[in-house]
């Protein structure tokens, strides 16, 4: 028996660890460092209908125990991803979760329709929470009604289960979670980045050319854990948790709060081997916690 295996809609995960979207490109770079088949899944960079260059640089800034980014969804567009990126990833025994972004509902629907037909795409992740694009993105993630409609529209065309990625920049995250569940979402991924800003100490100018950026990394983990905890109580679909995961104990925390699997973003930049390292450490951690199968940890904070 595989003590780390987790089954989720569309996803047979050999372990619950996957790189988060935007922090792993389309896998090529990290694939040079280790065998990607080791991963539970891969969340690839956001794909939009057209090629996007993204925002001007600087696009990243460091903050205390975190970072801001405003990449602006740079990606080679649907065709580029379908023709160059996904086929390359087929060589690995790893399910792909395709992060789908857009400006209009039609963009999402169009991308979802096509990308969900790729043989190795086992699930979609609707990015309704990107704070770094002028139109679309986060606006879909802050209004429950709009979030629900978008989810339904994408569900109607997708060949694979649809996960919706929630924004933490809301007054009531459970409201949005319930809305996307009502819209037919098969799962939830959370959290995307918190909107933040860093100013240059000398000039007062925002360090990030875009002005604001999305805050990620260990700094946001307490907010992410709180939101996963709240959403777990509010919905009946599984959650893939993220936000500051850097060490094996962080994974335990997210599972305890209610996540069924965990994504690792920023930590890949700090330690490019973080995902395989955590995966290797998990069995010993389960022993330490006296747990036989990792699924026993899911939501344990709620059962105390």
């Amino acid at each position, binding site marked *: 028996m595989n003590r780390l295996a987790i089954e989720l809609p569309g996803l047979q995960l050999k372990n619950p660890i996957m790189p988060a979207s935007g922090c792993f490109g389309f896998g090529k770079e990290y694939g*040079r*460092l280790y065998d990607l088949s080791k991963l539970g899944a891969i969340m690839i960079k956001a794909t939009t209908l057209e090629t996007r260059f993204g925002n001007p640089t*600087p696009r990243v800034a460091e903050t205390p125990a975190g*970072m801001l*980014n405003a990449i602006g969804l740079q990606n080679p567009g649907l065709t580029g991803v379908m023709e160059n990126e996904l086929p390359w990833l087929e060589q690995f025994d790893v399910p792909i979760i395709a992060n789908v972004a857009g400006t209009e509902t039609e963009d999402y629907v169009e991308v979802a329709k096509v990308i969900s037909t790729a043989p190795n795409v086992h699930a979609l992740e609707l990015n309704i929470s990107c704070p770094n694009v002028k139109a679309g993105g986060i606006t879909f993630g802050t209004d429950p009604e709009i979030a629900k409609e978008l989810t339904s529209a994408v569900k109607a065309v997708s060949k694979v289960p649809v996960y919706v990625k929630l924004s933490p920049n809301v007054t009531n995250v459970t409201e949005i979670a319930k809305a996307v569940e009502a819209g037919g979402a098969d799962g939830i991924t959370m959290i995307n980045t918190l909107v933040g800003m860093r100013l240059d100490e000398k000039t007062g100018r925002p360090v990030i050319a875009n002005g604001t950026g999305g805050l990620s990394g260990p700094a946001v983990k307490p907010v992410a854990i709180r939101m996963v905890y709240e959403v777990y109580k509010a919905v009946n679909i599984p959650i893939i948790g993220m936000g500051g995961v850097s060490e094996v104990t962080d994974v335990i925390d997210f599972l305890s709060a209610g996540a069924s699997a965990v994504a690792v973003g920023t930590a890949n930049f*700090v330690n*490019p081997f973080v995902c395989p390292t955590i995966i290797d450490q998990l069995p010993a951690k389960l022993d330490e916690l006296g747990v036989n199968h990792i699924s026993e940890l899911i939501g344990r904070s709620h059962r105390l």
Partner: protein
Amino acid sequence: MILQDRMVVQSQQQIAQDIFEMKLTGNLVGEITSPGQFVHIRVADSFEPLLRRPISIAAIDQAAKEMTIIYRAEGRGTKVLSEKRSGDTVDVLGPLGNGFPVDEAMPGETVVLVGGGIGVPPLYELSKQLTAKGVTCIHVLGFQTETVVFYEEQFMQLGETYIATVDSTRGTAGFVTDVLQTVDANFSMYFSCGPMLMLQAVQQMYPNKKGYLSFEERMGCGIGACFACVCQTTENSSKDYVKVCSDGPVFPAGVVAL
């Protein structure tokens, strides 16, 4: 191959105001393929500062598995780095990126190396490798002020060396371009590393020369995955954009939109 190496500090020395020279040993050194490559350094195991710092490789000693880095301790991260003592270990990712093409210069040719501030370090290993193969190197190094000048002697041992300081406290008053006006234009190519404005000025000065420029950009991953360090390219380039970390940091003049 890129390694994540727990390198051992052999020495740490302040060589000018806020400027430190650190020698590190480890297996990573064996993977370095060209001068101008860089390493990505995690300065502490703490989550603050969080991100790695990109620092150029300034000198390599393959026999000793040793490399030298030279850096300015100014911000939070480099200050922490400057507190390391010999015997401490540092988490280093590298070698990263594509360095200067030493092969492009032929023995007997003369080339010009133009460096500014903390862009000077990678030119040192470059010059060592070029002069070793019989290329004559002229070094033009610009600094803000006298107190931050470093490695002048080391460069002089390799070839003609001119210093410029913005506040005219040392060498030529002004910028590297002020020195370049006086350098015999009869050289085959140039190599440059330094602030964007300097790279711009140098490229503009020699529109018809072959040249290689090393760029800086804020980085996340350092290996090409996060799209933090992207630069727009000129029309003449075959790519729409380049990543400084993995496509660069060194590019032929004319590729990156300045």
